[in-house]
């Protein structure tokens, strides 16, 4: 896999999408593990919005509780109090602490979760076929189109174990997009990749975003990744996790890697690096104490 310099492209031809969806409102969410007093507080009165049709990136040190928040939105974990709305519909709240997982919010996992026993195209068509939305033939046709569109032609009948891990991530995103989700939840999806592959993946993700305008909620501990991708960056405090600083990144989209060397980008980095470093240090000393 090689990386080529990519020139700025014109996305004005891309039609404006149907009304934007996938806005998430997180209000006063608390999550503690264990009993009320003795329990460990993972998320502490967390309030922020994920705007529809935008990329919102949460940055925090490893183990700060950001994945807990993502799991609450996805419906894998319950919350202790507060509420989360998706497009003004309650996902979870005081009456119903655990959301129901569903194809409107699809997670792309840290280590990837393509089923290794299914071929790439069987993976991509899994959602619509399981839900009975499309026949096998229809699903395969749609999948072939979407995979070709994402540069994944020719690997349809390979198994995920036979392709490079960067390509696997892209197959997984296409698998999610097949379901026309309201929001994609990405849990440090590029963590295990080397930095060159990562930069290719970032641009590929942005291009998928520009085409689909799907709302993206992205979790990372990499500040540069966050500012490069995000319309909005939420810097989290470390355990318990709470927004420390919310930044609207006004670098215009579409972006590519030339953005990294601009003055505006450096300014955002300078502005946030201290805050992130402070939390990382806290997380580190807390870790020291625990051991």
């Amino acid at each position, binding site marked *: *896999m*090689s990386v*080529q310099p*990519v020139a700025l*492209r014109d*996305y004005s*031809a891309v039609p404006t999408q149907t009304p934007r969806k996938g806005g998430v409102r997180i209000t006063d969410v608390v999550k503690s593990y264990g009993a009320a007093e003795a329990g460990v507080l993972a998320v502490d009165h967390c309030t922020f919005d994920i705007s529809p049709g935008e990329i919102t990136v949460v940055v925090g040190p490893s183990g700060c509780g950001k994945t807990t928040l993502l799991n609450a939105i*996805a*419906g*894998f974990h319950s919350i202790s109090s507060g509420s989360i709305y998706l497009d003004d519909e309650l996902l979870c709240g005081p009456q119903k602490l655990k959301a129901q*997982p*569903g*194809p409107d*919010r*699809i*997670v792309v*996992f*840290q*280590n*990837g*979760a393509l*089923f*290794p*026993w*299914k*071929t790439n195209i069987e993976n991509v068509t*899994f*959602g619509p076929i*399981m*839900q009975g939305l499309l026949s096998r033939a229809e699903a395969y046709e749609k999948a072939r189109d979407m995979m*070709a*569109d*994402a*540069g*994944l*032609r*020719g*690997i349809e*009948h*390979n*198994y995920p*174990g*036979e*392709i*490079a*891990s*960067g*390509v696997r991530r*892209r197959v997984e995103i296409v*698998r*999610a997009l097949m*379901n026309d989700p309201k929001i994609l939840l990405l849990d440090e999806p590029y963590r295990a990749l080397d930095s060159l592959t990562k930069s*290719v993946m970032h*641009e*590929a993700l942005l*291009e*998928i975003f*520009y*085409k689909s305008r799907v709302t993206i909620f992205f979790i990372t501990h990499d500040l540069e990744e966050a500012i490069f991708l995000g319309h909005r960056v939420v810097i989290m405090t470390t355990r318990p996790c709470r927004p420390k600083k919310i930044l609207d990144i006004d670098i215009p989209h579409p972006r590519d890697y030339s953005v990294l060397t601009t003055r505006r980008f450096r300014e955002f980095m300078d502005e946030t690096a201290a805050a992130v470093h402070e939390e990382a240090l806290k997380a580190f000393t807390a870790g020291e104490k625990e051991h």
Partner: protein
Amino acid sequence: MTEVSPVRVLNADVSLSPADDAVRGISPLALAIHRSLLWLKSPRPYLMIVGFTLFIGFWYLAVEVWKLPRFSEMPGPTEVVREWLSRNPTYGLSIFTPEYYMHIWVSTRRVAIAFFLATAIGVPLGLFLGWSERFKQYVFPVFELLRPVPPLAWVPLAIVMFKGSETPIIFLTFLASFYATALNTMLGVESIDVSYTRAASCLGATRWQVFRHVIVPGAMPFIFTGLQISVGVAWFSLVAGEMVSGQYGLGYVINTSYTMVRYPTIVIGMITLGIVGYVTSAAVRLVGDYLMQWRTRELALGGDK
């Protein structure tokens, strides 16, 4: 102006390498040939031959040349091979006597029946044990209490419970196989990364669909490990069962040859058990490779992890 998708432009060079192109769409047979050629090119088969030579050589020297004290009553390899390949065997059993094949057939049939029963009961039981925490809480303690009881300890009850000599032997053979299969299947289900079940429920799969498309294939590698162990222990307990009762079978051959002082025949029985046991175990592995081609390909092609 032709419209080129921006994604396509960027991704044009992010494709499989030519080496991957060559192996794409390869048939299972071609893959098997590819693998055996690799095997022949590797040092493994030749080291294996050296290993066998050393073993048989030691046996030969210890018994027939040096006549070491503990080995004095043992049949040597030349005596065993001569008997085994004789048209007119001294003790009545060689590859030219129909009886030899009768014993092999009877033992194999018993193992096959016991193995299929153990698989048919053990795999579903293991799947449910791994899948349902509640079910496991009911069943697993009983299972764990019965599992350490050796098949030989079941001999009296088996004879009391079942009529004739055939069913007790099959029951004893079944027992150990069943434990190995059920336990490995359960571990297989428990080893499945929670991301897979979560991904499936994100994609709208129902609980039953998760079971069918994630739990069963996800546990498959462990199931087949279990089945290979299961075949092995089936032969193990079969011989124990055949030594106790029955008039045919390789265990019976070994036991009666002992009482009738036909030592070379004992060794013939043992070698035959080794060969037949290996063949059945290899057959199970082949079926597993066939059912889990995703895995065979991953291993054969060394996809990057």
